[in-house]
């Protein structure tokens, strides 16, 4: 994470359904329109498949499904945020990118204590901006981990 003066940072905000989320802008490489993905056999439901990103094979994670929402039927209006997660590059399917936020660290409030595992796994904090609530999510766990396939 790049910290500017007064430990301010830039976040990229996006929508999934009625909810707003954001991730650190430094992890986002590019944003592109939805294109049909090639289905991968025996993959979790939130993995939409793979697409060709200039010669590299890019897995597409349906972030709505990953976060436990009703997955959308993707249209041309949906976008894919290409993000760096560790050493891998992943495409995240979201409804739309809404904003670039410049915030200081103290504007990020701790995640409210909720029971949802999903929230604990992904949400790192919440922001209140102009009456909106935006959840800051971490991308470390968006890809499925290598769990043994049940025989």
């Amino acid at each position, binding site marked *: 994470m790049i910290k500017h003066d007064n430990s301010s940072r830039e976040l990229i905000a996006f929508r999934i359904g009625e909810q707003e989320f954001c991730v650190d802008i430094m992890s986002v490489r590019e944003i592109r329109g939805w294109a049909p993905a090639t289905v991968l056999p025996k993959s979790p439901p939130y993995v939409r498949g793979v697409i060709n990103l200039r010669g590299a*094979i890019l897995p597409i994670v349906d972030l709505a499904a990953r976060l436990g929402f009703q997955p959308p039927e993707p249209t041309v209006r949906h976008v894919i945020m290409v993000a760096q997660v560790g050493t891998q590059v992943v495409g995240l399917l979201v409804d739309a990118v809404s904003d670039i936020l410049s915030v200081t660290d103290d504007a990020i409030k701790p995640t409210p204590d909720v029971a949802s595992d999903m929230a604990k796994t992904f949400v790192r904090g919440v922001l209140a901006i102009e009456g909106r609530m935006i959840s800051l999510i971490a991308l470390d766990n968006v890809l499925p981990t290598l769990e043994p396939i049940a*025989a």
Partner: protein
Amino acid sequence: MDAMAAVKQTFFQECEEQLAELETGLLAMERGEAESDTVNAVFRAVHSIKGGAGAFSLEDLVQFAHVFETTLDHVRNGALEPTADVMGVMLRAADLLADLVAAARDGLSVDSGRSEVLVTELTALSPGGVGADTEEEDDLSDFSFTPVTVAFDFSDAPADAGRSYTITFKPRPELYAKGNETALVLRELERLGQMETSCDASALPQLAELDPEGAYLEWTIRLTTEKGEDAIREVFEFVEWDSSLTIQASDADADVDSGAGSTEDAFAALLRSIQGDETALPTATAEIIPLPLAEEREAVVEVEAQPAKASAARNGSGGANANANAAAPQTIRADLERVDRLIDLVGELVINQAMLSQRVMEAGHVPGSAVALGLDELEHLTREIQDCVMAIRAQAVKSVFQRIPRLVREVASMTGKQVRLITDGEGTEVDKTVIDRLNDPLTHMIRNAIDHGLEKPEVRIAAGKPAEGVVRLSAMHRSGRIVIEVADDGAGINRARVKAIAAEKGLIAADAALSDEEIDNLIFLPGFSTASEVSNISGRGVGMDVVKRSIQGLGGRLSITSRPGKGSTFTMSLPLTLAVLDGMVVTVADQTLVVPLTAIIETLQPKPADVHGLGGGARVIAIRDTFTPLIDVGRELGFRNTATDPLVAVAILVETEGGRRSALLVDTIQGQRQVVIKSLESNYRHVPGIAAATILGDGRVALIIDVDTVIANSQSDATILEPVLAAAG
């Protein structure tokens, strides 16, 4: 210390190159092509290794390299004839040197007995025996690798080395026209004693006016030598008439301190500037004696080259010697990852260009319009770029072939056979991905050829053949693949025995009627090994079946032809790159998949009478009297839940690496295509049943089926069904 480690790593990398050069040179000498260039190259290789090893205090390596070098020097100056016996020792010495380098790199040690034996042998070859003491000290000062000490010690040089001569030497153009070379003359001269050289370049014209075949330099040489003027004249014997030459004797004593502006000072200054204030470098403790000029120059080049990692410059370590000016191809070292990225991008460019052409045509531009012509041009350019980029990664098989002569020597001595290796087509290029995986199968094939193919010398003589067997290793390009052949002139396959063994091991029925070809191919069956006693060399439990499978794993094929009494030939055919694969593009449940062509035996349209259900959804298909499991790819990969009707589908008969056959059921076949292999793991993870991905002409991703796992998975599914089958059967 990190910097030191990096330099050390470079040293070992360069050792590899030097060792390769050494071996190539020695083999050329063994064939009787002992030109002075070759001998010099061999000498330089050992010398450079010794020099570097000295800097890193690798004592074992230095000591052995020194003895080796001393013996080589006798060959170089003609005192020792490079006979077959001598070369045999030399080659074994080169092997040991390679082992010592490897041991030094990995921090291990080599059996000192081996080194002692060779030291004795090498020393015995030297005409002067052990006592080449003066030379030894000469070399000691040099392998210290710290020429700076040398430079400081010049004032202490003993001046009683005889008379001093001042020689002026001005070559005329005819000298060069006749193929003579000043540098060689000067080098010869410096053998006579202590020498200072200065060059008067004042006659050198501006570049524009320079005649490339002219001669503009005048050399002034101060030589202190015990030899007389005659010896000096002898050096100039062949160039005297094409140059102006004066030789004047002067008083030796007057000479010692007169070196102002001399070469030594220049070198000392250069060295100081190179080394800066770095005093922590290892310094020589050996007593220093003035060096012959050439040694100094080499040392300087090495110091210069190390920081720059300029292996190319160092390759011709004689780079210092003017005679190495002959243009060696220049090379650079590049990070493989960058090259791979470039290849990826160019592949993408090709796809993109194809898509663009298609869109332009769809937009109504007719062929021949300006836009279409421009696109044609673009297509040519992209293809050319692709070829060039692929060529960057291509390497000559030489790097693999170079390891073979040593292997042959080892196996030959272990089996007590006499073997001559002939290699052909070393320059054949193939992608690096293939080169890296060629070594193991090739090693096994060579071992097999010597151990099983060739007969013992007495048997050969009895059969009227020369005692020495020949193994021929060749590489060539054939229809877009690389073909590597290992041929021996041995006894050929003993078919009666092969058949008996196969029957004994239950691999075939005892009364099976097999053609010669079928019998020959029995040796590729798992569990087949003809060696009656398990030898150290071939019978390590891995047989030709392993070789065949590893070659198939590379998308290659292995075949054998054999003639009794004349020998056998193993032919291995491989794709030129592992970055691409020949595949059959098929459709399954609206998904496009690729089946590797190497696994496919045939495709067929199932007939109603051929397909039989076994219950529990398992089906078999009858193909020419055998029942083969029918695997529904769409269901197996989870693309659909209902079984495909085999009558509207296509069956692809495939063979696994283990040799088992199955039929894959797919919806339609789109065609056959060469596809670029892309990793799924780099951004995702391994997917069971899928080997990799590729990008098709329309820019979409298609998955490449891993035939073996698909079949294995379907069989593990089937085991669950076994009780059902048992009940049904």
